[in-house]
């Protein structure tokens, strides 16, 4: 399988599978049916048939499994995710990498709750990268919805095993026992601790049939929803312990840098390699041909030395002759000109057509409005630079080659695919080591091109190497949020009701695939709620790699739709809140039977809550304004009201952002609030100052000085309200991010009368 666009496919596949799974589960009241073979199979996998705690896989058949076998010695395994130590401490595997979204804390909390262990008795281990842990993928706000039911089952299953062991030890019926705070307690008051029960008799307990498991009522929760539980790695983080991929050090490791063509996908022809090799601390410098695929291995110059500084320093002195004949020719200026020349046309590819927009626009009773919106390319700017440690060992005496890998990656198992696809190494010869924390993901770390680079360098020099990208490398060779343009046109009738909506999308395309921002779903709000709709797109081929950036697609569509709805409300002389609620209409699912589709009642719930908490409609002094926006993404409902003050010299102060969220029940309260706080700040950061441009295929920005990240003084007050409706819990890494931009730009309009249709704000003279 080619790695081309694989991360987009993966995200789509997982989202699709999840949607089906959630729909299926919602059809049964219990959420679990007897014929649910896949789930049962999953639990059974962890226990030998007939009971027992031995790992089902008896003999390691691959390098990875051999490593896992070592890993599980010393404690008893109750199921795939839960082990108990001889002291009765509970070890829970974190399934997916933590990049700040809090899954290393949230997912184990779910299992711990059902198990009945005290949170202080829980140790979280990073799961090996192995199929028995399911899809170990962090992204798409999918971890909680995907794993929630499984984690409950793991916890409840382990709880039943403790109860069984205690029933035997106390010689009482198991029905008379309950588990609380790491104790099994009998109705008589007699109790046994997990430590006392961590005996071989526990190991002999049968693994319960998942169909028989009972789950706690919300009122009994001690861990889920607690605001006293904080990040599992906090103590290690505040003391500087090595937790990140970039902190890896293995014996005899060398350090590497890799210089690729500034015009993306260009080829290295020659370089002053001999000069470079003579520099202090440098061991080797060489050209890598590559395969011309920016998702795999682009051509470049590798420099290997005895420290990161030595190779970075040498890279400054590198002179390369590039062949740019096959490189990207992208030009932001040209894209702007193209979009400008085509904004009044229809796009060549249809997206949606309902009713008759032309008739609605021609009706003299209707008020018709047209606006052209523009948003830039963005870089992810993860603070931990891209890095990968690879140890490629040539097999001796006819043995096969082996490869060990460590890297901050949002989908670690994909490193196996990369090793196989690009280097022909089957999984049996490769070990992907889990990394505890990732220094920011935001959708950047789905691709494996940096892994391929590290493998190629390690293979060439015959030693383990840590490849570290400089900040400049990270900015110039990202998988960007695509920039683009949308022309929206709409009609409101004499009653001020929205009756027609038209959208023409400038759709960037990489080969056969549209970028996330080049796709506009026909279900995108408000298109299903308007009687006359037309949406088309104009494809635009680019060569700049693009990928997912926090709430991909949504983060541009929210800006356009929510700004334009505000424009229409103003044009119709109506209150934005009332206008928006009218568009939302009666409570109903957009797609009946799909709980991951939009429900207008839940949407109205957050819109009303945000407005009420923010004091929507109150009188404000000149220069101050409130702006409202709503967006539905990743199954999450978020409404925000921004309160801003704009000075005469366009200094923007975001006084407060009020946020109402409905993602069902909250697992990790502190972590959930953190995601919302971070999304608001991230959104303001991008909206005010960030823009990636390119000419001749080369990115023109390089570091913090020309790609500003928001600093602490601009931090607004953020007032967060979770509605915690009785719906399945969904993820929160993304849904709050797209909303803040239109909330703030609508507030700027309210404060100043200036409509923002182009980002970032600094191009209009604003600063924060």
């Amino acid at each position, binding site marked *: 399988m080619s790695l081309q666009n694989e991360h987009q496919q993966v995200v789509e596949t997982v989202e699709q599978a999840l949607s089906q799974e959630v729909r299926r589960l919602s059809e049964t009241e219990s959420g679990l049916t007897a014929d649910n073979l896949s789930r049962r199979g999953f639990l059974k996998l962890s226990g030998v048939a007939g009971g027992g705690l031995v790992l089902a896989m008896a003999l390691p058949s691959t390098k990875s499994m051999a490593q896992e076998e070592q890993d599980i010695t010393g404690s008893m395994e109750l199921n795939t995710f839960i082990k108990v130590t001889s002291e009765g401490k509970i070890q829970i595997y974190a399934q997916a990498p933590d990049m700040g979204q809090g899954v290393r804390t949230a997912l184990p909390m779910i299992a711990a709750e059902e198990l009945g262990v005290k949170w202080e008795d829980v140790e979280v281990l990073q799961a090996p990268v192995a199929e028995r842990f399911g899809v170990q993928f962090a992204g798409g706000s999918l971890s909680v919805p995907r794993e929630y039911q499984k984690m409950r089952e793991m916890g409840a299953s382990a709880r039943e095993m403790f109860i069984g062991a205690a029933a035997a030890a106390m010689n009482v019926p198991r029905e008379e026992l309950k588990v609380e705070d790491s104790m099994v307690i009998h109705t008589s008051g007699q109790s046994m601790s997990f430590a006392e029960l961590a005996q071989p008799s526990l190991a002999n307990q049968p693994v319960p049939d998942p169909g028989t498991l009972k789950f706690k009522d919300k009122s009994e929760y001690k861990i889920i929803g607690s*605001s006293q539980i904080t990040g599992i790695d906090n103590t290690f983080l505040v003391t500087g312990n090595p937790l990140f991929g970039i902190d890896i*050090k293995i014996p005899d490791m060398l*350090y590497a840098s890799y210089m690729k063509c500034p015009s993306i996908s260009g080829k290295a022809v020659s370089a002053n390699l001999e000069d470079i090799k003579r520099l202090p601390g440098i061991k080797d410098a060489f050209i890598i041909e590559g395969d011309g695929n920016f998702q795999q291995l682009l051509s470049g110059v590798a420099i290997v030395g005895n420290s990161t500084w030595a190779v970075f320093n040498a890279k400054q002195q590198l002179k390369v002759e590039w062949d740019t004949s096959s490189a990207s020719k992208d030009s932001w200026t040209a894209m702007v000109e193209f979009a400008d020349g085509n904004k009044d046309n229809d796009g060549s590819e249809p997206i949606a057509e309902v009713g008759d927009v032309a008739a609605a626009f021609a009706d003299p009773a209707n008020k018709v409005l047209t606006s052209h919106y523009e948003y830039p390319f963005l870089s992810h700017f993860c603070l931990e*630079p891209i890095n990968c440690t690879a140890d490629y060992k040539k097999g001796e005496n006819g043995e096969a080659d082996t490869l060990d890998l460590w890297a901050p990656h949002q989908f670690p198992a994909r490193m196996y695919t990369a090793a196989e696809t690009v280097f022909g190494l089957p999984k049996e010869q490769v070990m992907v080591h889990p990394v505890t924390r990732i220094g920011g993901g935001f959708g950047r770390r789905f691709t494996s091109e940096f892994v391929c680079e590290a493998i190629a360098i390690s293979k060439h020099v015959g030693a383990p190497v840590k490849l*570290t990208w400089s900040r400049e490398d990270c900015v110039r060779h990202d998988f960007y949020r695509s920039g683009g343009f949308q022309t929206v046109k709409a009609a409101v009738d004499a009653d001020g009701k929205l009756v027609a909506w038209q959208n023409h999308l400038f759709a960037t395309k990489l080969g056969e695939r549209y970028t996330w921002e080049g796709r506009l779903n026909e279900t995108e709000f408000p298109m299903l709620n308007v009687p006359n709709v037309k949406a088309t797109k104009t494809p635009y081929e680019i060569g700049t790699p693009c990928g997912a950036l926090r709430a991909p697609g949504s983060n541009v569509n929210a800006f356009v739709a929510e700004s334009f709805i505000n424009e229409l409300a103003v044009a119709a002389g109506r209150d934005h809140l009332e206008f928006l609620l009218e568009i939302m209409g009666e409570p109903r699912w957009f797609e009946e039977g799909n709980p991951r589709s939009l429900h207008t009642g839940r949407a109205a719930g957050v819109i009303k809550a945000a407005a009420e908490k923010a004091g929507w409609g109150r009188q404000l002094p000149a220069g101050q304004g409130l702006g409202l926006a709503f967006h539905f993404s990743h199954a999450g409902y978020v409404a925000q009201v921004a309160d801003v003050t704009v000075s005469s010299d366009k200094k923007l102060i975001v006084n407060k952002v009020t946020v109402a969220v409905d993602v069902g029940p909250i697992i990790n309260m502190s972590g959930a609030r953190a995601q919302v706080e971070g999304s608001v700040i991230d959104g303001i950061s991008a909206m005010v100052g960030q823009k990636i441009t390119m000419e001749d295929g080369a990115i023109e920005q390089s570091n913090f000085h020309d790609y500003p990240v928001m600093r602490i003084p601009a931090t607004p007050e953020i007032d967060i309200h979770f509605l915690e409706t009785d719906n399945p819990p969904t993820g929160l890494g993304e849904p709050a991010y797209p909303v803040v931009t239109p909330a703030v730009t609508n507030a700027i309009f309210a404060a100043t009368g200036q409509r923002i249709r182009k980002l970032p704000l600094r191009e209009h003279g604003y600063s924060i």
Partner: protein
Amino acid sequence: MPTYTLTINGVDQELEADPAMPLLWALRDVLGMVGTKFGCGIGQCGACTVHVDGQPMRACSIPASALVGRSITTIEGLAADANLTALQQAWVDLDVPQCGYCQSGQLMAAAALLESKPNPTDDDIDAAMAGNYCRCGTYVRIRQAIHQAASNKTAMFYDATATNAEEDVA
């Protein structure tokens, strides 16, 4: 390759490195102290903040060899003994980190601030912390944690009611 001695977290450490090598890489690659982080390499992001004679400095922008005879403190040495400082404890209790990568630098900048201004105002915090970027946006809690450490409050976990209660008092 010349050798020289640096005093790091109260301990003299001999290292052999190019005299031009910045302290950041001497710490990370030569001495294996990886708590100090590489973020930008141009002194802009603050992820590599350490203390030199008590002053916050960017380890990516000072040659290690220039620091012979100076007292260097890194995140690994922030807690003088096995116990966390009040600042670190506030960071843990208020759940400040998200990805966590910038947090060593944030803590070093905050520790230096509290050393010079034991009871900083929001403006003091903004001025002292403006050079430390957090890509995840933990600024709300950084402010709170610095205030909490300054007031020596007992552990106050992060939740909305706690924040509102404070506002009520004010």
